[in-house]
């Protein structure tokens, strides 16, 4: 059975131990008492047997039934240990006997040697009872050995006598009384310790660090005081640790926040970022690496560039910095096309990363990849634009140079050539002038610095003026000109100079790309929401595949009929940009061989004043 408390067990152990002690004491006392009783019996027996042996045979053995010394001794002594007494002859036959009730005198051969006549011996009773201590002495009669006197006593041992009980009881009682007393006293002392132990156990299980509060005195009170001092010290230490931990947590959060902020910034950058550590292994990369180089950013971590990059230009560029202490880093970027997407152009830069604490300590290399495809295209376009401008400027200049040179030479003497040359020179000067105007306008529009100088104007005035100018320049051609304007039109709020350029360019094209006998029509119509200005011709028309391309700068059709006319491919792009600046719409309808129609749709909501003026 499991006992609830250790001290209960120790209490029982103590009781058991005290019983054992009592038992041992009793056994020892009993042994001692036996020994002293045996000594008493021996002294008494020897004395008595000597006394009886000193008597004569006749004195001991009385005739005629009288009581002899043995009977008298038996009756007077009333010794509980006395077993028997007998006077026997030389052969051992009893002459007279006395005995305790139930005792049979054991037969026993008597010593023959005179030295052994007087003595004692231990005899076993016939019925396996207690052994006897027998004392024997010779009896003489007339100087002759006549027989022996034998006195037998029970050998002490084998039970406590009734008389001995009070002694043992008085010995056991205080022990019995003292043991539980001692036990209860001990429990009283142990209980606070037990409570303290339980309290500490509770404190441990609760995980707190509270003080011990007990009714205690003495050493336990002293222990509790020291324990509580320790608790105070521990609390202070814990508080200090908590503060340090809070500081650490705050620092960690701040660091984590900063790290995530830096991470977000690095991920948001349009550039692909790779950081190589001192040993040349990639330790960081952002997600843009996949888009720019076709390499998974996660896969490069812990690997050398040669393991994740197959572009020899990049590897050669980086190889220069391997083992560098920071010097020799080039400020010249490397331009390359990634293997997975050769159409792209990337710019790569490598920068040394120095320790913020020690600028001589190189921590690694920062590699940036930037997609410069658009910039490259823009650069190429810019270069192409300049080249085109040069071409368009030099072509009329070339013609002018050749004709003027020819005019000065022998050819100039011919009247026919002079007229031709003068016309050509005039046309080319016109062409140059238009080209330069268009270039200026288109540059202004494209640079984004163009502020529309909107004015409220009569659209019909602008259209009539433009129509008049263009028809004059086209007078020599076999063409019909039609102007169809409504009698009344709303005033419009437009940049009249730009709109005039747009209408002029459309009308010029309608004349240039017309056919002999063709018609050029300028028409305006007003609806509820918009005003439409259309320029129509029934000339050579524009092939469907070219209808988008004609709005690209410097585009010129390969059609020989188109090529037969001078042009620089800036007129229509400029018209489109002017229309877009006015938030208007330019619509083209054209059929090759039948003619073209360009319609500018001006939205009245934004471009037209809400009242009508008479035409």
């Amino acid at each position, binding site marked *: 059975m499991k006992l609830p408390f250790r001290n209960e067990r120790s209490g029982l152990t103590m009781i058991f131990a005290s019983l054992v002690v009592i038992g041992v004491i009793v056994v020892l006392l009993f042994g001692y008492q036996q020994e002293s009783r045996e000594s008493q019996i021996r002294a008494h027996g020897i004395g008595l047997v000597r006394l009886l042996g000193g008597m004569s045979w006749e004195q001991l053995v009385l005739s005629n039934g009288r009581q002899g010394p043995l009977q008298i001794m038996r009756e007077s002594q009333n010794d509980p240990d006395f077993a028997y007494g007998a006077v026997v002859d030389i052969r051992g036959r009893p002459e007279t006997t006395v005995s305790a009730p139930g005792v049979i005198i054991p037969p026993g051969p008597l010593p023959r040697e005179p030295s052994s006549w007087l003595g004692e011996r231990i005899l076993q009773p016939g019925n396996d009872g207690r052994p006897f201590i027998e004392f024997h002495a010779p009896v003489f009669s007339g100087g002759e050995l006549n027989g022996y006197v034998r006195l037998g006593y029970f050998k002490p041992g084998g039970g406590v006598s009734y008389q001995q009980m009070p002694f043992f009881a008085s010995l056991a009682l205080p022990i019995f009384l003292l043991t539980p007393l001692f036990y209860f006293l001990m429990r009283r002392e142990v209980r606070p310790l037990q409570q303290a132990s339980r309290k500490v156990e509770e404190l441990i299980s609760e995980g707190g660090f509270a003080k011990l509060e007990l009714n205690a005195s003495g050493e336990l009170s002293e222990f509790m005081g020291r324990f509580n001092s320790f608790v105070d010290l521990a609390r202070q230490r814990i508080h200090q640790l908590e503060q340090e931990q809070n500081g650490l947590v705050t620092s960690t959060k701040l660091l984590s926040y900063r790290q995530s902020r830096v991470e977000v910034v690095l991920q948001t950058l349009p550039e692909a970022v790779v950081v190589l550590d001192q040993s040349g292994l990639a330790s960081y990369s952002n997600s843009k690496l996949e888009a720019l180089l076709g390499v998974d950013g996660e896969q490069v971590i812990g690997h050398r560039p040669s393991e994740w990059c197959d572009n020899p230009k990049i590897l050669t560029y980086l190889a220069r910095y391997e083992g560098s202490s920071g010097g020799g880093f080039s400020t010249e970027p490397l331009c390359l096309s990634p293997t997975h997407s050769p159409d792209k152009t990337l710019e790569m830069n490598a920068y040394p990363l120095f320790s913020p604490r020690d600028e001589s300590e190189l921590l690694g290399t920062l590699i940036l990849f930037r997609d410069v495809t658009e910039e490259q295209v823009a650069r190429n376009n810019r270069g192409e634009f300049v*080249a085109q401008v*040069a*071409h368009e*400027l*030099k*072509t009329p*200049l*070339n*013609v*002018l*140079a*050749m*004709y003027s*040179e*020819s005019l000065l*030479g*022998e*050819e100039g003497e011919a009247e026919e*050539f002079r007229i031709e*040359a003068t016309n*050509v020179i005039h046309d*080319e000067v016109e062409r140059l002038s238009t080209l330069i105007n268009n270039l200026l306008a288109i540059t202004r529009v494209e640079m984004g610095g163009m502020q529309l100088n909107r004015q409220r104007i009569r659209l019909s005035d602008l259209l009539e003026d433009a129509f008049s100018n263009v028809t004059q320049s086209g007078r020599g051609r076999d063409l019909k000109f039609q102007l169809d304007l409504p009698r009344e039109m709303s005033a419009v709020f437009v940049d009249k100079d730009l709109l005039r350029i747009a209408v002029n360019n459309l009308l010029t094209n309608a004349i240039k790309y017309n056919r002999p006998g063709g018609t050029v029509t300028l028409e305006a119509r007003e609806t509820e929401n918009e005003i439409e200005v259309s320029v129509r011709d029934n000339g050579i028309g524009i092939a469907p595949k070219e209808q988008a391309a004609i709005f690209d700068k410097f585009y*010129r*059709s*390969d*059609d*020989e009929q188109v*090529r*037969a006319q*001078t042009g620089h491919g800036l007129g229509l792009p400029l018209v489109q940009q002017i229309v877009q600046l006015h938030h208007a719409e330019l619509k083209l309808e054209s059929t090759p061989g039948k003619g073209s129609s360009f319609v500018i749709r001006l939205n009245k909501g934004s471009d037209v004043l809400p009242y009508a003026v008479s035409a």
Partner: protein
Amino acid sequence: MKKILIADDEPHVSRVLKQSLERSGYLVETVLHGEAALEKLQQSHPDVLITDIQMPRMSGEELCRRIQQEMPGRCFLIFVLTSRTEIEHREWSRQIDNLMFLEKPVSIRRLISMLNEYFAKDPCNRENQDE
């Protein structure tokens, strides 16, 4: 008579050059683009080709490449009229034999004197062949 082929999409240029060169004693043919020039070269075997760079259908650059590729061992000189500088055409032009650049605006007088000088050297030994 030395034959000259002019490839230019600018009709005024072709016209005034043709007049001036014919007056100087050359036989001149004109075409409007590279494709026509390549065709004409096969037919009339001119002694000099004068070509513009920017032309429809086939540019002057493409024409020169095709000549280099399709007419190995050709002897005639190519004059290329360009709005740009010679340096800008260096990359492709170094692969073409017997080629000279003339930057616009071109002086007809200078062109004729260059042609005369060129033919005086009789680079292709055409006179002997003709005889």
